[in-house]
């Protein structure tokens, strides 16, 4: 496998037995365990998406039955949301980098960190069991009374799986908050922290405050489904909108759990490959915290036409516009960071630039949906599907891949093949737009979501979208190959291949088991790309 130099105590060199991996408390190894697990789930969810797109290539439901289609989009939703997107950056890059970036030896509670991974696997087992036993057809939103009364599929199994994996997120969030508070290196005051750490901190706050609400709501759903008594089923006196309030109280902050870490990664990559400090670092940090806090006040914009009262709709609409302001600030600040920079276009930078464009598109279409009168026409159509895919796939997944490329040399001690990576990034960018831009037009034309068959007037746009999906699917396979190749034949990576700032680049690649041989001290501002020291490093190492 990886030829770690004998005698060196890199975290990969310290034993390669299965037991050493499955009982490790090293945050770096746990990050890799998570990376492998979520990659498996990414391709399961991706397979479901590909099948959906192939089915939708024709208006008639001729490839698969309606039930299978409903189970496919539910499984695509459940797996992508809870088993890929939410853990993606926090559990992999976050786990690996938070201690390294703040100069700590490990997270505050290493055993808890390993327990979080086992909770993830245990929850995954339930979801996979439900998948193989016949799937679930309620949509990832589990709306009642359909999920409690009318669906005859494995709702309990999936709900249990999501309940368990929820605790994996809660414990990871708790671990990060305590680590960032208590284990920062001397001199590393809050406003010298990299924005990636700010993003992980804000994400952890959301994880800790939102996920418990989901856990209990799904428990009540399961109890109601089994006992046929409860507070959600209108036939029994319950209120289905109460379920929607409790579900979206978690699920809207959950979309910020998915996008905030991506914002952190983009800030790191952009500063490095533009050789410029982040423009307005403090307002970027405040924007991250503002998104996390205000993100809890806007969930009602998912319920404008669901029978929610008009006045609540008004309140949620204005608050949704307020939460858009920090996102706008970030996009403008990222753009300004490029001003007078020295920009190079390695793969991570391509993903970061792609992120800015696609996240902006996603964010701006959110402004359409937040306007009450427009939401009446656009909600529950493909406009919404395109909106959140632009943010989740165009934004979060692109940043995740960008981050994987950016820190790959640090994690594995190997360099990935640059040309292949740049090609994959560009292919994914076009494949993505080709797939999801037509869906905005389908949404405006009025094609509802979750349709196995659709009216003939939507045919051409769906064919375009399906064609794009094929490109996107192949695009995602490429990194698998060249990353695997680089593990064995990749050039050996120096400690700081990109001449980036940040404590994680001051340790060897791959890092030592205990991260830092001598405890680091930080006394400089973050993103010191214009300081003499980093200019000399670039000049000499170029």
């Amino acid at each position, binding site marked *: 496998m990886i030829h770690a130099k004998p005698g060196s105590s890199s975290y990969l060199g310290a034993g390669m037995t299965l037991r050493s991996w499955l009982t490790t408390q090293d945050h770096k190894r746990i990050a890799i365990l998570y990376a492998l697990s979520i990659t498996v789930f990414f391709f399961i969810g991706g397979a479901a998406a590909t099948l959906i797109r192939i089915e939708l290539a024709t208006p008639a439901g001729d490839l698969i039955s309606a039930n299978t289609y409903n189970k496919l989009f539910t499984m695509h939703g459940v797996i992508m949301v809870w088993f890929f997107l939410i853990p993606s950056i926090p559990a992999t890059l976050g786990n690996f980098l938070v201690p390294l970036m703040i100069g700590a030896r490990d997270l505050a509670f290493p055993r808890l960190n390993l327990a979080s991974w086992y909770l993830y696997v245990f929850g995954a087992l339930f979801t996979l069991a439900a998948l193989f036993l016949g799937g679930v057809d309620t949509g990832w939103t589990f709306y009642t009374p359909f999920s409690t009364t009318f669906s005859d599929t494995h709702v309990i199994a999936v709900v249990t799986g999501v309940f368990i994996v929820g605790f994996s997120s809660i414990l990871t969030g708790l671990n990060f908050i305590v680590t960032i508070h208590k284990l920062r290196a001397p001199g590393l005051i809050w406003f010298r922290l990299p924005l990636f750490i700010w993003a992980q901190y804000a994400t952890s706050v959301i994880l800790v405050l939102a996920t418990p*609400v989901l856990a209990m709501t799904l428990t009540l759903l399961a109890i109601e489904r089994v006992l046929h008594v409860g507070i959600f089923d209108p036939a029994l006196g319950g*209120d289905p909108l109460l379920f929607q309030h*409790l579900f979206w109280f978690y699920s809207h902050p959950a979309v910020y759990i998915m996008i905030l870490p991506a914002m952190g990664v983009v800030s790191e990559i952009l500063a490095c490959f533009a050789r410029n400090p982040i423009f307005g670092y403090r307002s970027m940090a405040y924007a991250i915290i503002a998104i996390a806090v205000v993100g809890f*006040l806007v969930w009602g914009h998912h319920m404008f036409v669901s029978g*929610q*009262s*008009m*006045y*609540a709709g008004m309140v949620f609409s204005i608050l949704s516009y307020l939460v858009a302001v920090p996102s706008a600030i970030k996009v403008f600040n990222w753009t300004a960071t490029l001003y007078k920079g020295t920009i190079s276009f390695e793969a991570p930078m391509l993903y970061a630039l792609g992120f800015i464009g696609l996240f902006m598109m996603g964010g701006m279409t959110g402004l359409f949906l937040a306007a009450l009168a427009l939401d009446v026409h656009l909600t529950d159509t493909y406009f919404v599907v395109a909106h959140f895919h632009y943010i989740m796939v165009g934004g979060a997944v692109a940043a995740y891949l960008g981050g994987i490329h950016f820190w790959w040399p640090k994690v594995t001690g190997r360099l990935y093949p640059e040309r292949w990576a740049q090609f994959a990034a560009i292919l994914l960018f076009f494949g993505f737009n080709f797939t999801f831009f037509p869906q905005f037009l389908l949404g405006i034309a009025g094609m509802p979501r979750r349709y196995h068959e659709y009216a003939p007037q939507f045919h051409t746009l769906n064919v375009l979208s399906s064609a794009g999906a094929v490109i996107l699917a192949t695009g995602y396979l490429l990194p698998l190959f060249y990353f695997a190749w680089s593990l064995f034949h990749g050039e050996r990576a120096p400690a700081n291949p990109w001449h980036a700032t940040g404590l994680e680049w001051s340790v060897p690649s791959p890092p030592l088991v205990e991260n830092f041989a001598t405890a680091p001290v930080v006394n400089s501002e973050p993103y010191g790309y214009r300081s003499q020291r980093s200019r000399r490093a670039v000049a000499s190492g170029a």
Partner: protein
Amino acid sequence: MRNARARPYVLAWIALLVLLGLSAGSSLLALGTFNLVSNFAIAALKAALVVIVFMHIRRSERTVHVAAAAGIVWLALLIALSLSDFLARGS
């Protein structure tokens, strides 16, 4: 075993039992909506006593105070907005 250090705990305990008696007793009187307010005010007072005396939150860092407050504020937020929607619906 009784010594000076146990005194605050015992005093708090007595206060808690008194408050319990107060809330139980007051709920038997027909006070209408005041009943609702007094019950929750007393419950909040009892909770505060437990947090301050038994859990000695003052010894903890400021971050802990923020964490504890965040739980309560977020819960109040959830209940307030969901309830206001329910009431405004006029169903």
